[in-house]
C-alpha cells in the first residue's frame, strides 16, 4: 500500500504534553508509503473523525494509521469512520502513543522519538494489511439456561418473554434453587417463596420454555450460534407425563426417614418424594439409594397405589440432544463444608466450632429451614437436639470467608446481611430470646442495607461483638461459646442453645467440569470468569456463553436477578439476527502446506482447530489438513506459534506483518 494517511492525536494534553505532536506528524510524513500526515487536538471527536473521512476520500487513501490511544479505546470508532468513507475497516491501525508512550514517560525528546517509532511500526503493519470481511455465522435462535435458581429463572423468563425458545436444565428434581428454601429475604423481609414460586410456575407453564429437571449437561459441541447440547435426564422412576402429582406415592412410602436435601438434613423425606410442596415440576423422583424396590425388588407400595401407573422401576438415564445458539450459565453456589473442607487433613476447617459433632451447631442455610414457614418445623424455631425453643442464639459470621488459612481470602458478601436478618427473624419468633452476633466487619453496602443492620441491633436488640469465636464446647446441653469482644477488649463466654455459622459461599459442585465442557474460564476458587469485570460483566471469553448469579461470585438475590436480566439481554441481542457477525481477525491454515501434524488441534484452548481432509472437486482424497472453525476461533494465535510448518497464520496479524514491523525498527 502506498497511500497511507497518518492521523496524530493530541488527546487534549494527554499526549501533547509529553510528545511533540507537530514534530511527530512531520517526521512520519516521510515514511515510505505515507501520503499525508496531520495532527488534531481530539481525533476521536466529530471534527476529528470528519478529518479522517475527508482525507480518505480526497487523498484516495488505501490505509490509515491513527496515532492516539489504545485500540481497546477507539479502534472501533476509527474503523467505522473509515468504512463510512469507503475504506475497508481492517485497513485501519492504531498506534498507541498514549498508554504506551506519553502517559509513562517524562522526557519530551525521548517520548517524541518513541512515538515516531510506534507509528513507524503501525505504518508497516498497514502496508502489509489485507482487506478483510467480517465472518457471518448462522444462528439457532434458541437459548440454553443451565441452572434453575432465581438467576436461571429470571434469565429464562426474560429470553422467553422476548419471543425466543429456552431450554432449561436443572439437576435437582425441582427448579427454585437455594432461594426456594429461604425463609424471608433482606432487606424487606418479604417471604422468599411468595416472590419466587409464581416465577417458578411461569417457567413450568411457559410455552417457549422447555424444562429438563433432574437433568445435567453431559456434553457441549459446536460454537456460538450453533451449539449442540447433550443432556442427561437422570432416571426418575416416575413417568412425568402420566403422573398427576397427586401425592399418593409419597404418602404411602414406608421409608420416610431420609434426610431431606431441600431441608439440609433438618427434616426428612420419603424414598419417593418431591423436594417441597411447591416444586416445579410437581412430579416426584425415587431415591435409588434407599428405595427398597430398586435395591432388593421389595416393597413397591407406591406402584400399587399409583392410579396413573406412572411408577417405572425400570427407568434409565436418557440422553437427549438440543440445538441452541447461546448459553447462560447460572449454576449458583453451595456453602463451605465446615470442619471438613481442607486440602490438608491436619488443617481442619473450623473443627473448633464442633459442626457435625454438636447437633445444635448448624449452618446458615439450615437455620433458614428452621425459621421457614415451609420448613420441617413449620416455622417454629426448635433446636435440633431436643426440639426446645432456644433462648440464646449465637451467630458467627465469616466462617471460611476472609480467611487465608482456610484458602478462601474473599468476602462472601451476603453473610453480614443474612446474619442481621437471622437475628431479626429469631427475635420475631422468640420474643424473650437474645441473639448474639460475632463479626469481623459489618459490610452492608446496598440500598436499605445498613439501615437493616441497624434495625437488627437497635430495634430487635441483637448484641453485636466485634471479634472471633475461638472454641465451642458442650456442657450439660448448653453450647459454651468462647470468643472475644475486641472493641471492649474482653473475652466473652456465652451459654448458647443454638449456634449458627455463616459459612462461606463456594461455587456449586461440578462447576469446574461444566466450565471445561463449555470451554469457559474459572478462577482458583471455581467461580466463573467474566470477560471484563467492568465492561463485559456477563460475557465469558467464549463467544455466545454468558454467566449470571452466584456461579460468578458471591451475590445476593437482587444482584443475581439483575445480572440474569443483563445476560438475557445479551442473549436477545445475539438471537435478534438470523446470522452473527464476528471479527475476521482469526487464524487460518494454509491447507496446501499443512503437514497434518495436528499440534494446533491439540493446543488450541478453544478447540477451534479440526482435523479435515482436502479433496478434489470430485471428492478424491488429496491430503489431510488442519482447519480452523471460524465460529470457535478467538484469534489468540496459539496455533500460529506451535505450527512447525508455518502454515497457520492470524489474519490481520500475520507473521509477515510482525516481521515487517520489527524490521522497520532496525
Amino acid at each position, binding site marked *: 500500500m502506498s497511500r497511507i494517511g497518518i492521523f496524530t492525536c493530541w488527546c487534549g494534553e494527554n499526549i501533547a504534553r509529553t510528545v511533540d505532536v507537530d514534530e511527530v506528524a512531520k517526521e512520519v510524513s516521510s515514511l515510505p508509503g505515507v501520503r499525508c500526515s496531520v495532527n488534531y487536538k481530539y481525533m476521536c471527536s466529530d471534527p476529528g473523525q470528519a478529518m479522517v473521512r475527508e482525507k480518505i476520500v480526497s487523498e484516495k487513501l488505501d490505509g490509515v494509521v491513527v496515532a492516539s490511544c489504545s485500540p481497546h479505546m477507539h479502534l472501533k470508532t476509527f474503523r467505522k469512520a473509515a468504512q463510512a468513507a469507503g475504506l475497508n475497516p481492517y485497513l485501519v491501525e492504531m498506534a498507541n502513543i498514549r498508554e504506551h508512550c506519553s502517559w509513562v514517560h517524562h522526557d519530551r525528546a525521548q517520548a517524541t522519538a518513541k512515538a515516531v517509532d510506534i507509528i513507524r511500526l503501525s505504518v508497516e503493519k498497514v502496508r502489509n494489511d489485507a482487506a478483510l470481511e467480517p465472518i457471518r455465522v448462522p444462528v439457532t435462535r434458541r437459548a440454553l439456561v443451565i441452572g434453575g435458581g432465581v438467576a436461571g429463572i429470571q434469565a429464562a423468563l426474560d429470553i422467553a418473554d422476548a419471543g425466543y425458545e429456552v431450554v432449561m436444565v436443572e439437576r435437582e428434581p425441582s427448579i427454585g434453587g437455594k432461594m426456594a428454601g429461604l425463609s424471608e429475604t433482606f432487606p424487606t423481609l418479604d417471604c422468599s417463596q411468595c416472590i419466587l414460586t409464581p416465577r417458578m410456575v411461569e417457567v413450568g407453564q411457559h410455552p417457549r420454555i422447555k424444562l429438563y429437571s433432574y437433568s445435567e449437561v453431559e456434553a457441549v459441541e459446536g460454537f456460538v450460534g450453533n451449539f449442540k447440547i447433550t443432556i442427561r435426564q437422570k432416571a426418575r422412576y416416575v413417568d412425568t407425563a402420566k403422573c398427576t402429582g397427586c401425592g399418593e406415592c409419597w404418602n404411602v412410602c414406608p421409608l420416610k426417614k431420609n434426610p431431606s436435601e431441600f431441608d439440609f438434613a433438618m427434616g426428612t423425606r420419603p424414598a419417593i418424594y418431591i423436594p417441597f410442596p411447591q416444586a416445579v415440576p410437581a412430579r416426584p423422583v425415587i431415591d435409588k439409594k434407599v428405595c427398597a424396590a430398586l435395591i432388593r425388588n421389595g416393597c413397591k407400595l407406591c406402584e400399587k397405589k399409583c392410579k396413573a401407573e406412572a411408577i417405572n422401576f425400570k427407568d434409565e438415564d436418557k440422553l437427549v440432544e438440543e440445538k441452541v445458539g447461546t448459553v447462560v450459565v447460572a449454576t449458583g453456589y453451595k456453602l463451605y463444608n465446615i470442619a471438613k473442607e481442607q486440602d490438608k*487433613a491436619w488443617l481442619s476447617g473450623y473443627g473448633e466450632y464442633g459442626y457435625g459433632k454438636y447437633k445444635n451447631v448448624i449452618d446458615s442455610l439450615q437455620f433458614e429451614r428452621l425459621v421457614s414457614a415451609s420448613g420441617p418445623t413449620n416455622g417454629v424455631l426448635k433446636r435440633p437436639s431436643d426440639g426446645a425453643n432456644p433462648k440464646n442464639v449465637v451467630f458467627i459470621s465469616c466462617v471460611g470467608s476472609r480467611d487465608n488459612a482456610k484458602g478462601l481470602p474473599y468476602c462472601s458478601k451476603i453473610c453480614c446481611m443474612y446474619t442481621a436478618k437471622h437475628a431479626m427473624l429469631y427475635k420475631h419468633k422468640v420474643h424473650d430470646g437474645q441473639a448474639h452476633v460475632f463479626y469481623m466487619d459489618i459490610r452492608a453496602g446496598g440500598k436499605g442495607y445498613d439501615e437493616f443492620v441497624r434495625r437488627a441491633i437497635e430495634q430487635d436488640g441483637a448484641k453485636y461483638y466485634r471479634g472471633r469465636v475461638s472454641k465451642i464446647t458442650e456442657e450439660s446441653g448448653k453450647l459454651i461459646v468462647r470468643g472475644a469482644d475486641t472493641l471492649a477488649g474482653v473475652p466473652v463466654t456465652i451459654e448458647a442453645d443454638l449456634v449458627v455459622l455463616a459459612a462461606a459461599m463456594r461455587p456449586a459442585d461440578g462447576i469446574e467440569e461444566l466450565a471445561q465442557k463449555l470451554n469457559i474460564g474459572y478462577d482458583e476458587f471455581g467461580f466463573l470468569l467474566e470477560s471484563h469485570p467492568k465492561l463485559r460483566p456477563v460475557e465469558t471469553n467464549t463467544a455466545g456463553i454468558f454467566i449470571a448469579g452466584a456461579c460468578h461470585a458471591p451475590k445476593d438475590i437482587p444482584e443475581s436477578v439483575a445480572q440474569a436480566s443483563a445476560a438475557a439481554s445479551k442473549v436477545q441481542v445475539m438471537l435478534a439476527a438470523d446470522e452473527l457477525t464476528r471479527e475476521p481477525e482469526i487464524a487460518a491454515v494454509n491447507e496446501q502446506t499443512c503437514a497434518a501434524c495436528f499440534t494446533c488441534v491439540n493446543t488450541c484452548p478453544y478447540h477451534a482447530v479440526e482435523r479435515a481432509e482436502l479433496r478434489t472437486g470430485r471428492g478424491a482424497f488429496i491430503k489431510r489438513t488442519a482447519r480452523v472453525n471460524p465460529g470457535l476461533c478467538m484469534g489468540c494465535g496459539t496455533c500460529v506459534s506451535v505450527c512447525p510448518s508455518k502454515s497457520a497464520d492470524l489474519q490481520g496479524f500475520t507473521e509477515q506483518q510482525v516481521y515487517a514491523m520489527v524490521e522497520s525498527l532496525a
Partner: protein
Amino acid sequence: MLDGAEEMNLGYYPGCALHGSSNDYEQSLRACLGALDVQLQEINDWICCGATAAHALNHKLSLALPARNLALAERDGLKQLFAPCPLCSMQLLKVQKAVADGNGLRTELSQIVEAEVRGDGQILNLIQVFQTIGLDKLKAAVKEPLKSISAACYYGCLLTRPPEVVHFDDFEQPKSMEAVLAALGAKTVEWNYKTECCGAGMTMSSEDTVLDLAHKILSNAAAHGANCVVVACPMCHVNLDMKQAAVEQRYHEKLGMVIYYLSDLVGLAMGLSAEQLGVNRHFVTKA
C-alpha cells in the same frame, strides 16, 4: 516380644524434662518400648531445645539450639528421631520447616552449630511411635485389656499445634490417642478440654493460672465420665498430677484423677507392672 515383629531402632531425644523432673516418664517409655522391642538410641551430647525461653529472647537462638540436636542425630545416622516431649518435638520440626523454607537458613544454621543441618529425618511424638509400630501389632501384644479404664485423652497445646509445623492429626478435634487406647481395649470419653492449655511453664511464675486451668481440665474430664486422664507430655503431667492436690485444696473438690502417660497404659495392657512403669511414683496413684 512381639510375634514376628522386627526390632526397631529409634533415635531418642529425651530433652531436659525426662532427665529431671519427669524421669518417671522416661522410666515408663523405656519399660513400655523395651517390651515392644523398640531400641532407643539417645543422641550423644544433646543439649536443651530452648523450650519457651529461647524464642522469647532471640529467634535465631531458638532455631539454633534444636538445630544442633538435629545435626547430631543426622550425624549419627538416625533417620527417625523420637522426642517424647511435644515442645521438644515441635522445636525440632520448626527447624526442619525453617530449613526447608529456604532463605539461606540451612547454611546459616549449619555455620552456627558447626555441623551440617539437613532437616530430612522424621521426628516422632509418642503417639506417632505407636502408630509407627502399628496399632494392629499393639493390639496383638495386649495381654490384659484395659476394661476398667475410661480415659479422657488430653493432647494439650503442642501435640497438634502449630498445625502448619507439626502436621499431626486434626488440631482442634484430634483422635489419634483415642485410636491407641481403643487398641488396648480401653474406653475413651468425649470431652471439651482435649486441646486446651494446662498452663505449662506458668506453673513456676503464676501458680494461680495453672491451678485454674488444671481445675477446668480435670473437672471437665470427670464430668464427662472419665476415671483417668492420659497425656503424652511431661509438662501436662506435672500440672495435672503434681498440682492436683493444690487444685483440690483450692477448689474444695475431691478429684482423685489418675494421670497416665500414654506409655503407662500401653505397658499396663501388655502386662507390665505399675512399678516397672513408674506409675507408683505419680502423685495421684489411685482414685
